[in-house]
């Protein structure tokens, strides 16, 4: 319990009157990589929005590094050390590649990642640093989005469906780079629809189904059968 960097306790999330999450509980231990899988509409995005503060909930429902953050603003949570690679990349079109990366470090958190470090990791971005960010290919934009999140030197990094809309060969290279990116200091949550990739990269997995946790377990230990049942709610 004490080495959990993120604790979600009985999270009920609402969009107005519509309830999207029902009593979701999960944990991320320091240095762990957690996978969150589930079909469309299962509540994965809602979960990510709740953790990053884009959706506010009761303070005690989300606890990060010992502090209740459920009611905080997204920018306050970002300063505390949570960063996200959003679904669909969502780069800033008015900013160049370099500006997108620099703004990732806006919160000014100290750490190992810097502009040079990101360019070392993704050399192709260095060549295109002054280009308008949205003029890059899908895979390159994903690199910018990842780099932008790294620039925040987060303690917890969220990856929201980073394989969406990308060619398989690009997805492969990104996932190959991921363990090196996350390193040993960071914890991560990887939200994916691609179950195989999610299981391969993570230590533990949670499955969401219609707003509830339908399965949790060690990634190496859960059976495909159990996952299918939990995924589809059979």
């Amino acid at each position, binding site marked *: 319990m004490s080495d959990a960097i993120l604790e979600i306790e009985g999270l009920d999330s609402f969009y107005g009157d519509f309830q999207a999450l029902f009593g979701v509980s999960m944990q991320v231990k320091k240095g762990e990589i957690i996978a969150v899988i589930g079909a469309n509409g299962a509540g994965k995005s809602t979960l990510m929005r709740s953790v990053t503060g884009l959706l506010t909930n009761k303070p005690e429902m989300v606890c990060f590094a010992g502090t209740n953050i459920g009611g905080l603003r997204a*920018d306050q949570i*970002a*300063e505390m050390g949570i960063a996200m690679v959003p679904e669909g990349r*969502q780069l800033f079109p*008015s900013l160049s590649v370099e500006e997108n990366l620099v*703004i990732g470090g*806006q919160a000014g958190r100290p750490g190992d990642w810097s502009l040079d470090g990101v360019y070392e990791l993704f050399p192709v971005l260095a060549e295109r640093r002054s280009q308008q960010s949205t003029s890059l290919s899908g895979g390159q934009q994903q690199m910018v989005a990842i780099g932008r999140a790294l620039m925040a030197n987060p303690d917890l990094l969220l990856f929201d469906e980073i394989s969406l809309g990308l060619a398989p060969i690009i997805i492969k290279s990104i996932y190959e780079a991921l363990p090196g990116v996350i390193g040993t200091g960071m914890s991560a949550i990887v939200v994916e629809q691609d179950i195989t990739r999610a299981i391969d990269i993570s230590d533990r997995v949670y499955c969401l189904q219609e707003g509830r946790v339908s399965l949790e377990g060690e990634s190496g230990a859960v059976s495909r059968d159990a996952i299918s049942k939990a995924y589809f709610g059979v």
Partner: protein
Amino acid sequence: MDWVNAIIQGILLGGLYALFAAGLSLIFGVMRLVNIAHGDLIVLAAFLGLTVTTTLGINPLLSIVIVAPVMGLIGYALQRLVLNRTLGDDILPPLLVTFGLSVIIQNGLLELYSADPQKMSAGAIETASVGLPGGLNIGVLPMLMFATAIVVIGGLQWIFYRSAWGRAFRATSDNQDIAQLMGLNKSHVFGLAMALALVVVAIAGIFLGVRTSFDPSAGPGRLIFGFEAVIIGGLGNLWGTLVGGIILGVCQNIGAQINPGWQLLAGHIAFLVILAIRPRGLFPRIDG
């Protein structure tokens, strides 16, 4: 020669109109808000300049040093306390709230200062002029106004495209949610944007007050000039706004040369013509 003079005066007047428009354009660019009280805030700045000038006995142009920061603070407070709450998908709240604000400012000024037209005197600089070949005389003050407009627009461009502030403005304007994930407090960012806009408004207001007489009801007229300059020049382009202001000023002056009563009408007609043939303006960068 009268015609050449009219055109030159019109070009220089365009600088003032560009100052009216710059704040409007900036706010629209950052938060898609059109402030109907914009003109009234320019007039407010002029009246503030009047009070500072008469109380302290300094030259109105110097009063900018006091009026600009005050207007900046007013802008920050206005945005954070009132205008931030109107932002969203619905177009009615910002429109109606800023309209209400316009009425409040106009009538507040009326209560405080009466309806009498006022004018600030900048001393000798008002009548000083530079002689040009061909017997033309160009006023020093209009040239100063025009030069200030260029400096202000250049400054705004620099802030927008080369500073961290501007990066924050552009990012928040692109995608409010993701900008927040970067640690940007959007309420604060919008507040800063409005503060900056009102600093520009302050400069515009002082120049207005020195150049011509003004009264509490002069706001809507200034809003319309600024708006026309923005539309003629094209949304999202500050230098385009300068061109728009120049075109407006020149057309107004040409109209006045033909018939003094046609001055304003000529400007409006130029605006309507551009709206008819180039609805997005001459150098648009974003869509409305």
